[in-house]
C-alpha cells in the first residue's frame, strides 16, 4: 500500500495547499466547487482522524453535490492522492490556439479514417454515469479518443445557438389556458379573496390573484456519436452546444456504446472548454453503437427525473444498431409512456430512395411523433415549422 501513495516533494507547502490542489483537481474534473468548499473541507478534516477512509468520506461529503458526483468521487480521489492518473489534469490545455490552427486541416483528414490515439490511462473515472457498465465499456469499446474541438468551430456554435433558440421557441406554446392561483397575477381571484376576507372581518384586505401559468416545454436531446454518424457530428454537436446555451432547461446526452449526460459539461461559459469537457466524457467517440441499450438506459434512469408530459425527446441518430432492433422499440415504448413527444432526426432520411429498413429504425417508427431528415444545421433550422405543428 505504501508504494501506491503519492509522495510529495521536499518543499511541499503543507496540507492546506495540498487540499487546495485537490480542489483544483476536482474542478478540472467537472465538480462545481468554490473557495468556501475548500474552507469547509479543511474544517471537516480537522474534526476527523487522519486515516485514509475517514479523509475520503469527509471530503466526499463536502465536495459532492449530486448523485453523479457521488458516483465519480472515489475514482477522482484515487487519481489525485494515489499515483494513479496524474496526467489527466493536464488534459485541459490552458491555451486553445494551437488546436484551432490545425482544426480545419485535420477536419478533412479525420473525417474518413479517424485518429487512433489509444488512450493510456483509463483509470480515473471520467463520465461514470452508467454505473457498472463503465469498466466493461471502456475495455470493449475501441479506445479511440477524439478531440471534439477539432470537429466543431466557434462559429458553428454561435450559428447553432440561434437555430436552437428558434426551434425551442417553435416548440412551446408558452402559456396554459387554465388559470391558477398565484402570488402575482393579472386577475383577481374573487373566491379566495372572499375567503381570506373572513379572517379580516369581512374586509378584503388581501387581494388574492390568479394567472395563466407558464408551461415551458423542455427539450432532451440525445445525440448518437458512433462511427457511422461521424460525418454529421459537426452540425449535431454544435447544435447540442447551442441548445444548451439557448435554453436553460434543456438536457443533453451523447451515446455510442453507452449513454452519458453532458448537460452540466455543456453549460460551461466557454464553449470551447465545454466541448473539451464533453470530449473527455465521450470516451469511445466514433466507435460502435448500441442504440437500443443506450435508449433503454435513458428510459430507466435519466428519463425518470428529466422527462415528463411536457418534454420533447429529440434523438439524432441514423438508427444503425449493432444489436437487434427490438430493444429500440421497447425502450421508446417505455419512454412514450411518460407522455413525452419523441422526434427522431435521421441524417440518412434526406437521401433519395431512403427507406427506414434498418431493423432498429423500423421498430422505432410506431413510437415517433416526428421522423424527419436532418444532416446539416440548415436542415435543423428548417424544422421550425414542423415543430410548431406538433
Amino acid at each position, binding site marked *: 500500500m505504501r508504494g501506491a501513495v503519492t509522495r510529495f516533494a521536499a518543499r511541499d507547502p503543507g496540507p492546506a495547499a495540498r487540499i487546495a490542489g485537490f480542489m483544483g483537481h476536482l474542478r478540472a474534473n467537472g465538480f462545481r466547487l468554490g473557495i468556501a468548499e475548500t474552507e469547509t473541507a479543511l474544517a471537516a478534516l480537522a474534526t476527523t482522524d487522519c486515516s485514509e477512509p475517514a479523509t475520503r*468520506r469527509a471530503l466526499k461529503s*463536502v465536495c*459532492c453535490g449530486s448523485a453523479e458526483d*457521488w458516483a465519480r468521487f472515489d475514482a477522482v480521489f484515487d487519481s489525485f492522492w494515489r499515483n494513479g492518473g496524474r496526467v489527466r489534469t493536464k488534459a485541459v490545455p490552458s491555451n486553445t490556439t494551437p488546436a484551432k490552427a490545425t482544426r480545419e486541416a485535420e477536419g478533412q483528414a479525420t473525417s474518413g479514417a479517424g485518429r487512433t490515439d489509444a488512450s493510456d490511462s483509463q483509470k480515473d473515472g471520467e463520465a461514470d454515469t452508467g454505473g457498472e457498465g463503465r469498466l466493461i465499456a471502456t475495455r470493449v469499446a475501441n479506445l479511440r479518443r477524439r478531440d471534439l474541438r477539432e470537429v466543431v468551430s466557434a462559429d458553428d456554435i454561435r450559428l447553432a445557438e440561434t437555430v436552437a433558440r428558434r426551434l425551442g421557441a417553435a416548440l412551446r406554446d408558452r402559456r396554459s389556458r387554465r388559470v391558477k392561483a398565484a402570488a402575482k397575477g393579472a386577475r383577481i381571484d374573487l373566491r379566495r379573496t372572499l375567503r381570506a376576507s373572513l*379572517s379580516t372581518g369581512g374586509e378584503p384586505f388581501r387581494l388574492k390573484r390568479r394567472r395563466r401559468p407558464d408551461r415551458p416545454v423542455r427539450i432532451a436531446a440525445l445525440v448518437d456519436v458512433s462511427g457511422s454518424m461521424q460525418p454529421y457530428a459537426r452540425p449535431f454537436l454544435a447544435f447540442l452546444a447551442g441548445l444548451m446555451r439557448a435554453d436553460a432547461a434543456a438536457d443533453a446526452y451523447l451515446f455510442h456504446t453507452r449513454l452519458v449526460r453532458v448537460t452540466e459539461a455543456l453549460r460551461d461559459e466557454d464553449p470551447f472548454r465545454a466541448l473539451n469537457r464533453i470530449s473527455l466524457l465521450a470516451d469511445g467517440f466514433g466507435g460502435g453503437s448500441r442504440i437500443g441499450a443506450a435508449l433503454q438506459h435513458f428510459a430507466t434512469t435519466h428519463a425518470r427525473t428529466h422527462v415528463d408530459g411536457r418534454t420533447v425527446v429529440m434523438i439524432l441518430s441514423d438508427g444503425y444498431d449493432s444489436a437487434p432492433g427490438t430493444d429500440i422499440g421497447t425502450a421508446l415504448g417505455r419512454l412514450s409512456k411518460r407522455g413525452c413527444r419523441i422526434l427522431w432526426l435521421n441524417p440518412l432520411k434526406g437521401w433519395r430512395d431512403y427507406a427506414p429498413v434498418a431493423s432498429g429504425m423500423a421498430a422505432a417508427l410506431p413510437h415517433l411523433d416526428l421522423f424527419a431528415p436532418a444532416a446539416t444545421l440548415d436542415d435543423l433550422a428548417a424544422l421550425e415549422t414542423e415543430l410548431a405543428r406538433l
Partner: protein
Amino acid sequence: MTADTVQSGLAAQGYVASPDLAMALHLALSLGRPLLLEGAAGVGKTEVARALAAWKRCDLIRLQCYEGLDAAQAIYEWNYPRQLLAIRAQGDHADEAKLFSETYLLERPLLRAIRQPIAPVLLIDEIDRADEEFEAYLLEILSDFAITIPELGTLRATTRPMVILTANGTRDLSDALRRRCLYAHVDYPDAGTELQILTTRHPTLNHHLAAQVVGFVQSLRKEELEKKPGVAEMLDFAAALAGLGVADLSADPAILQAALATLLKTQSDRAIITTEVAQRLAGKAA
C-alpha cells in the same frame, strides 16, 4: 465525537448507517451545516432524522414540502382571527402596537425550529417537491438562521437546529442549495447490512427466514420493476410473513404471492412478478 460514535449512537436507536452516511452526519453535526440526503424512495432518508433526534434526545421538527408550499405555511403567519377578536374586545382602546406582538404570531416549523431551548433536528422532507421560490427562502434561513418579520424585526436563532434535507429527484435542485449543504447519497443497503437492519428491527424473527427475506428482496431489486421495494417495504414483508406463520419462503407459493402485496405497489410490477418468477427468486434466496 467521531463518525464511529455517530454510527453506534444511531445503531442503538435501531438505525444501521453506512460509513459514508455516518461520516456525513458527523460532519454536519460538528460543522453545523445542513445535510442533503438523496436516494431512491424507501432507503431510509427520513428515518435518519428520526433516529438522530432519538439519539440526541431532542425534538424532531418536520416540514413536509409540497408544490405550492409558501412562507405562511413554512415560516410564520399572523393569527388574524385572534387579532380581530382583540380589536372587537378592546373597542376604542385598541392598542395597535400590541396586535403585532408575539401573542398573535403563529409559529410554523422553520420559525419554531430556531426558537427552541434545546437544538432540535429539523427535517425538511422532499425539498424537491417545493417550488423554486421556496428554495430561495430556505437558503436565507439556512445561511444566517434568522427570520425577519417586518412588524417585529429580526428574530435570531436561540439554538441552531441540526438540519436534514431529503430529496428524491422530482426536479433538479438549485446549485446554490446544493453548495450550502453537505451531501450524502443513500443507496439500497447490501445484503449484509440489510440483514442487520432486519434483525435489529425484528429481533424475534427466525434466522433462516430473515436470510431468505433479504435474499429475496435483494434479487427482486435486480428485476426490471417500476418501483423497487425499499427497506420499509422489506420490513413490512418480513412482518407479514411472520404474522402469517411462514417458516420457509418457498414452502407455500400462494402465501408468498399474497405477501408480495407489501413489496410491489403497482399493477405492472405485480404482473411481471408472476408466481413462477417469485418461486424462482425464493428458490435462489433459500
